[in-house]
Structure formats: C-alpha cells, structure tokens
C-alpha cells in the first residue's frame, strides 16, 4: 500500500534546485565531520607550515661551514695562513685536528668530517724554494652537492685570500698546488649517493604505514574488544605485530639494494652482513615508531596523517635530499632524532666507503635508542581497557 504510494508520488515534480540542495546537505555534513576531527584539522595547518619552514630555513643547497679535519705535518706561518684563508671562504669549518693519515681516513669514512686538509712536512720550505708543493684536500664526495661547491671554491678563493698574506702579485703565480681528491664517488655521480639513500627513504615510508594502521585497524573493526578480553599483554601484541613486517622490510631492502647494484652499478664496498644487520635494526626502529603512532591516534586517517608528518622532515632533514652538514644547527638537532638520518649515514658509509662497525657505532646506538624509546612509549600508551 505505502510502497505503491511512493511510486506514484515519485512522479511528483522534484523540488526546485534539488541538485544544489543535496550537494549543500552533503557539504554541511562534511564540514561538521571535518570540524570534529581535530587531528585532521591540525594537519591542514601543520603540514604546509612545516614544509615552508623546513624548505625556507633549514635547506641549503650550497652548504657552508662544512666540518673539516686538519692534518698538520708541520707548524708554519704559511700553513696557518692557508687554513685561515680556507676558513674565510666560509665553506670550511675546522672541527678536528689529527696527527696521522689513518686518523684522517677514519674521520672521513665515518662521516664525522666531509673534508680533510693535509699540509705536508716541509711545505713552507718547498714553497720558499719555488718547488710548488701540493696541498692535499680530500673530500667525501658521496654527496656531490655538499662537496662540489666547496671544492669548486677552493682554488680561486684560497688564492685570493693568500695573495694578501703572501704579498704575491695579482694575477699571481700560485706558489703551491691544491690537489683535491674526491673520495668514494670521484665522478660525482648523484645516483651513487641517491640509491643508498633511497633504501632508507622507501623503508621509512612503507614500514611506518604498515604498523601505524595496525592498532587503529583493530579498534575500527571492533576486534580490539575480543583481543583485550583475552590474556595477551601489550608487549606481546607489539612483537606479534612488528615481527612479520621485519621480514617484509628485509625483502624490500634486498630488492632495492639488488636493483641498485645490478641496474645502477652502485657498489657495496663494506660487509653485506653488516649492512643486512643494520638495515634490520633500521626497519625495526621504523616499525616501532609506526606502532607507537597507532597507539596514539584514534583512526586510520589520523595514523596516515601522522606518518606523513613524520615522513616529511625525514626526507628533508636526514641528509637524503640536501646536505646534512649544510643545515643550521637547530635543523641538525631535529635530524639527529630521525632514524633515517642515522641510517643514511650508515648505508652510505657501508656501501660507498666500505665502512665497518667501529666507524658506525654512534649511528647504530642512536638507532637502537630511538627504537627502544618508541617501543617503551608504545607499550605504556597501549590501552589495556576500553576506558
């Protein structure tokens, strides 16, 4: 009876502006929902502001004040003048003084400095004699952007600064030769730098999202209620959710590195076992952070947004896209708490520089500390009741 009524009434004229009314109804509903979702609302503000600030202030594609080590084989006025001249170019900042070539190599390999300057024994005397001795500058060229502009500035700038000190004519005949050696990536091929970095970047993105959704999914699907009524502890839930993805991440890392080696000709100079171990640590750290996110947020959308917010500075401030040493100090501090920063140092050092564990201690400990911190937060944040 009522069904047939409806059919007949259906032939009635549709109210005016039906299309706009219905669209308007939908629009009002969406606005209400958006307003209720505080996290989404915050993201609308935070993400663009964060990007703007990072790009505007933190990122510098012609980095200056790069950490440099000095190996002084003789103590001479000329040597000091040259170092002063280099520092005056604003590209170099002398952070370490070493006494042997091995120490210099070690600093470069572990990434603690980007340049090493060696003033050989008898340098000043050779200059006075007019022998044109060589001043050695070794650069860590794994990141061609970071090393390139400084190396390019080296000759003319140092020469100009020295012209004044040494009272040599202009245009001067340089009394010594600057022999720059771009280590690890002599041809300055950016793919050598990017492929190892990509291992970390891709893993960060995929691993975060895998676990960031894991707890919220249980809550949204209603399975959390059953799970919580069973005798399982928060740590057990966490391990159960993280471990499968460690394997997934491991396969993914193998795939990227394999393609990098076979297709792009990126070398793996260091130990493959060490690379595998530290990659596993990095994967686990990211999974723990993603899992922590999922214990904080209320739904899957928020989990995705929080992951995005973590991913963005990871790419920008980790040294993946832009030279880490060129960033202002505050940005470097932020970079230090991002796992990707440490992993990028590790993966570049192992693959391109052949670094071994002693060179990588600091970054390994940092990764492990971040992982433990994330796990602790996750376990304490995990709600054991529905309160």
């Amino acid at each position: 009876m009522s069904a047939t009524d409806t059919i007949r009434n259906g032939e009635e004229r549709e109210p005016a502006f039906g299309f706009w009314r219905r669209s308007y109804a939908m629009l009002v509903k969406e606005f209400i929902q958006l307003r209720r979702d505080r996290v989404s609302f915050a993201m609308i503000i935070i993400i663009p502001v964060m990007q703007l600030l990072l790009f505007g202030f933190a990122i510098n594609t012609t980095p200056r004040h790069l950490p440099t080590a000095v190996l002084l084989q003789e103590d001479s006025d000329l040597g000091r003048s040259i170092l002063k001249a280099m520092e005056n170019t604003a590209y170099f900042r002398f952070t370490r003084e070493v006494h042997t070539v091995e120490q210099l190599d070690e600093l470069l390999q572990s990434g603690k400095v980007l340049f090493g300057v060696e003033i050989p024994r008898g340098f000043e005397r050779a200059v006075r004699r007019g022998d044109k001795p060589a001043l050695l500058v070794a650069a860590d060229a794994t990141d061609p952007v970071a090393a390139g502009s400084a190396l390019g500035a080296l000759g003319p700038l140092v020469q100009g600064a020295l012209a004044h000190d040494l009272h040599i004519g202009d245009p001067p005949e340089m009394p010594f030769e600057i022999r720059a050696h771009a280590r690890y990536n002599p041809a300055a091929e950016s793919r050598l730098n990017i492929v190892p970095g990509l291992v970390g970047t891709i893993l960060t993105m995929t691993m975060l999202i895998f676990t960031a959704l894991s707890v919220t999914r249980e809550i949204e699907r209603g399975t959390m209620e059953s799970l919580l009524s069973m005798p399982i502890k928060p740590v057990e839930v966490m391990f159960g959710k993280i471990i499968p993805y460690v394997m997934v991440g491991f396969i993914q890392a193998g795939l990227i590195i394999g393609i990098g080696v076979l297709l792009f000709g990126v070398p793996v100079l260091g130990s493959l076992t060490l690379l595998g171990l530290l990659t596993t640590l990095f994967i686990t750290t990211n999974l723990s952070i993603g899992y922590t996110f999922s214990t904080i947020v209320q739904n899957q959308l928020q989990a995705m947004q929080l992951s995005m917010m973590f991913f963005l500075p990871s790419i920008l401030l980790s040294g993946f896209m832009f030279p880490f040493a060129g960033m202002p100090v505050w940005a470097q501090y932020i970079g230090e708490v991002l796992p990707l920063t440490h992993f990028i140092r590790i993966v570049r050092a192992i693959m391109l520089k052949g670094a071994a564990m002693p060179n990588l201690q600091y970054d390994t400990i940092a990764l492990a500390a971040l992982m433990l911190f994330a796990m602790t937060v996750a376990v304490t944040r995990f709600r054991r009741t529905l309160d």
Partner: protein
Amino acid sequence: MNGGPTSTQPSASSIAIDVKGLTKSFGGREVVHDLSMQVKRGEIYGFLGPNGSGKTTTIRILCGLLTPDSGEGTCLGYDIRRDADKIKRKVGYMTQRFSLYQDLSVRENLEFVARLYGMPDARGAAADMIARIGLKGREEQLAGELSGGWKQRLALGACTLPNPQLLLLDEPTAGVDPKARRDFWNEIHALAADGLTVLVSTHYMDEAERCHEIAYIAYGHLLAHGTVDEVIAKSGLSTWTVTGEDFNGLMAELTGKPGVDMVAPFGTSLHVSGRDKAALEAAITPYRDNSKWRWQPSEPSLEDVFIDLMGRSKDNFQG
C-alpha cells in the same frame, strides 16, 4: 519469598560473580549506578534491560575491560580490579558486535584463540570445536562471509574454546533466527550442565524464561532480581487478560485511567495491569459487563513486569 535462593547465603566457592556497589561514568554520565549482584556457579543468569541500560558496561567491568569508578568484587574468586589478567584466562567473553577477524577463516580464528591461550594442540582444539559447533565443511570460509547465525556460533565457539569457567554473553542472539536461537540456548544449557556459569544479556522475554535467575537493569540501576517467578511475584502487579474484539477503543479509554498503569496488546488478547489491585478493579468495572469482552484475572507476564519497572525507573531516575 522467604527461603528463596537469593536469601540463603551461598558459600564463597559456589559463587562465580560477587560484586558490590559498581559505579561507572562516561563523560559525566553515570552508566552503571551502585550495582551489586551475585551469580552462583553453574547457573545461567539472565541480564535484562532496555538499550543503554548499562548491561554491556557491567559485563565489560566483570571481565576487566573497564575499570569501575567505585565498587569492588570478585569474579571467579579474583579481584576485578587487581586480577584482570587471571580473570581473562578463565572467562570467555562474547561481544555484542561480532569481533573476531572477518578476514580470517573459521579455522584460523579458532586456532588464533587456542594459541593465544597457550593450548597445547591448537589445531586439534580448533578442529574439535569446529565439529562441536557444526561448522564442519565451512572451516575454510572467511568469518566475514558467514551469515549471522553462523557468526554467532563461531563467536560462541571461540569464547568456549579455552575451557572457561564463566561465559559472559552480550546479547548473543540479537538478529538471529528462531531456530538458531533455540539451538544456541540448548548449547548454553548443555554448557551449564557441565558446570559452566553463564551470564547472558538479552532483550527477549522467552530467553529470560530459560534462565535460572534473572536481573533487570535500567538506567544503570539493578531494579529486580531472582527467579522469573520471584520477579513476577515481587512486582506487585495485578493483571487482567481481556479477550474479545475491538480492542483499539478499549485501549484508548483505559490508558491513563487512575489505577491502570499499563495496557498492552498480546496477539488476540489485551493485558491490563495496575500496581494497586483495588484501584485497577474499580477502573475496569464499567467495562466488565460489556458483552464484547471477556475479562479474566491472570498473572502478569515477565514483559508486563519489565515494562512496568522501566516506566517506574524512568520516573525515578530520569526526572
């Protein structure tokens, strides 16, 4: 009422649930108010009340999923505040909404539960349960693809799998067809006969009558408890059953008359109830001689009692 099961004090070991003064609020709204109850071991205890009355909240407090704001008590002898982990090992909780993994098969869901409880032979235990709940042949089907009745069986199977001593069932038969409902209750009775204690919440009156004892809860207050007969006797409600024709006019006339508290049609008859027997009789006297209707004094049904309790509690607690 004297000599009824509730007035004798059972020994502690024979009590499965013993809670006093449970109170729980959400966002300033009190959902459970000063609730005390005792459930004896091996008993089927029905938990009745309208939607939003606090049944689910109470059940969640009992199995440690919620912490009460105040009140105390024990579940299977364990403190509900401190020993939630121990309670979870021995209690099976069937949630109101299906909460097993929809993207796991029947077998995988059961094996998950068996492993979680550390059962030595998870595969074997799951296979036995599949046979017991009659899901043989469907073990590889995804839980999400099962029909309502099968889902409910699977959920019951999952919560009885680890051999619990107490089952908490939250509206287990909502949206399930009568045949499946009957099978379900037969299973519950079989489990209780094996010594399992069952606390089951429901809306259905026929299910209430299948329980050994019932409690009625509305607006967070426990309003009545005891066996079905006791609850009816304690209600103090007098009821007349009217048979005949043209109830619509009669209903309209009787409703709201002093002495008449409730008028409810039951198929071809009408139940007219009141708390004051004399006032009720006075109210219906003018209609009793009308040949259209036949008046008979009768027992109030459980539904009459509950609707009356609900109406009264609404006056008391909702202003």
